[in-house]
């Protein structure tokens, strides 16, 4: 067990180092949410939401972008990275060694966790410094739980999706196509978006809106504690994704 943990730690450290050396991943994972927040913040700063006087639009933009940071880092980045590693034969090479496959995958997840937490922290900090928006003290639990559940759920989804991507070239388009439309209709970029009732019901079944709802609860003074429905949605998607990943994850590239 000690050896496993030592190897896990060592591998995760190396993966982190390699991640930050890759300008593409570093930019899209870390800088994109910050740029997005800066732009959306500039557009929405001072705007009101309906007849509410207790908060401005920017108070809900920050948790939306925070959700975006989690999704990009834990889901899109992990799925495309693993798909590329598989298509390039790197995973197969790893499997020719006696390294415990659990240690390798856990290291990838640990590295993703670190990256996601850093991206989330940077987004929170920018929201505070640039727009004076910070989570409510009563919302701390929702924020912490939302981040933990969100990271686990989306990392599991990323792991599961990676096996469905057979070519490295398709990794980016497939991952972005699976979350961007949902992000648009889930209020990630526009908290005051109005969508038809049927679409709202449909979208509420997906984890993107569940995560947004969770993180908004940390900022919105009218929110009441932990959103249980959103917790359930994230948990179900997370568990389902883990089950799929365990069945479909492969180390060798597809022979197609």
């Amino acid at each position: 067990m000690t050896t496993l943990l030592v190897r896990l730690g060592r591998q995760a450290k190396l993966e982190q180092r390699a991640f930050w050396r890759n300008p593409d991943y570093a930019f899209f994972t870390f800088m994109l949410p910050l740029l997005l927040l800066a732009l959306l913040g500039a557009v929405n700063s001072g705007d009101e939401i309906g007849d509410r006087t207790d908060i401005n639009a920017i108070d809900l933009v920050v948790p939306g972008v925070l959700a975006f940071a989690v999704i990009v880092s834990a889901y899109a980045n992990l799925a495309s990275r693993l798909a590329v590693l598989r298509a390039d034969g790197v995973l197969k090479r790893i499997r020719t060694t006696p390294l415990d496959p659990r240690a390798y995958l856990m290291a990838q997840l640990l590295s993703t966790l670190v990256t996601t937490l850093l991206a989330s922290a940077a987004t929170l900090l920018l929201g505070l410094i640039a727009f004076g928006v910070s989570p409510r003290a009563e919302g701390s639990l929702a924020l912490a739980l939302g981040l933990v559940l969100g990271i686990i759920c989306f990392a599991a989804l990323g792991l599961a999706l990676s096996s469905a991507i057979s070519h490295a070239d398709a990794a980016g388009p497939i991952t972005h196509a699976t979350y961007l439309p949902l992000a648009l209709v889930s209020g990630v970029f526009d908290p005051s978006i109005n969508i038809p009732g049927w679409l709202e019901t449909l979208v509420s079944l997906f984890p993107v809106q569940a995560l947004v709802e969770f993180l908004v609860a940390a900022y919105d003074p009218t929110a009441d504690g932990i959103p249980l429905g959103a917790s359930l949605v994230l948990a179900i998607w997370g568990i389902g994704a883990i089950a799929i990943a365990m069945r479909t994850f492969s180390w060798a590239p597809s022979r197609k």
Partner: protein
Amino acid sequence: MTTVVQVDRVSKSFGTQSVLRELSFSIEQGEIFCLLGPNGAGKTTTLEILEGFLTPDAGTARVLGYDPLTSGDTLRRRVGVVLQESGFPKFFRVGEMIDTWRSYYDEPLPYDDILDLVGLRSDETKLVRKLSGGQRRRLDFALAVCGDPEVIFLDEPTTGFDPEARARCWEAIADLRDLGKTILLTTHYLDEAERLADRIAVLLEGAAGAIGSTQELAQLASLGVTVSFQAPANEAEQLAREFPGLAAIGEVVEGQIDDVRTLFRRLETLEGHAAQRAYATLRIQPPSLEQAYLALVERQPDPTRSASR
């Protein structure tokens, strides 16, 4: 001698395409054994079965006595693999890669020995993505030997290389042989097989068409030796008539014959200085692997024929 790799009547199909058909061969300790065949002959499939990536439809494969499918880490600790196509995490440095790979093994080779073996000392701090094709292949070798393996699988290690990179790769393989490693090599380059391998299995349509050294394969292909010598023109023409494989062009006689001894006896009967001149100019060349391979491929021999073992 200890048998290190044993493949016994292994068959494998992908859908309706039969890739291996009752393939059998064995490799002894310290041997460089080559699977030679055209693209699609089943070389990589054979290696992937021995590496535990594929399950044979029929037959058994054993490496160091273990079933590659079920032996897991026990076997992986003792085997090094250079895959045919395999990338690297591009943002790792060469030294980091080697150091990380060493950490996967209980008793790895010393770091400096690995760098020296593959000649990457001056590239230690380079990012992998900045290495040339030849340097990447050497890194492949470095990673394969990190655990000081007893057996090394090399899948088409020089495909796409320029002549200099090939020469360096061959040197590295020869160095591994000198370290006492057992090596299973696949290639479609005849010169590579001839230069490196102790024994060669010619894969034809998924079965071992023939197995043996270059000389043994030549025997299986019923090839004679190539001879050339000089004799007076009239004698040269007479000799060409007596030995159907020979042809005379002026005073030069050359061609392929099966029975060299009969030729020697006949040359002794030449009069005057003719015999002395014939022996002085006599050149005998054993058949090359290329000749043997082409003859075997043309004849498509019975897959069960084997020169040895």
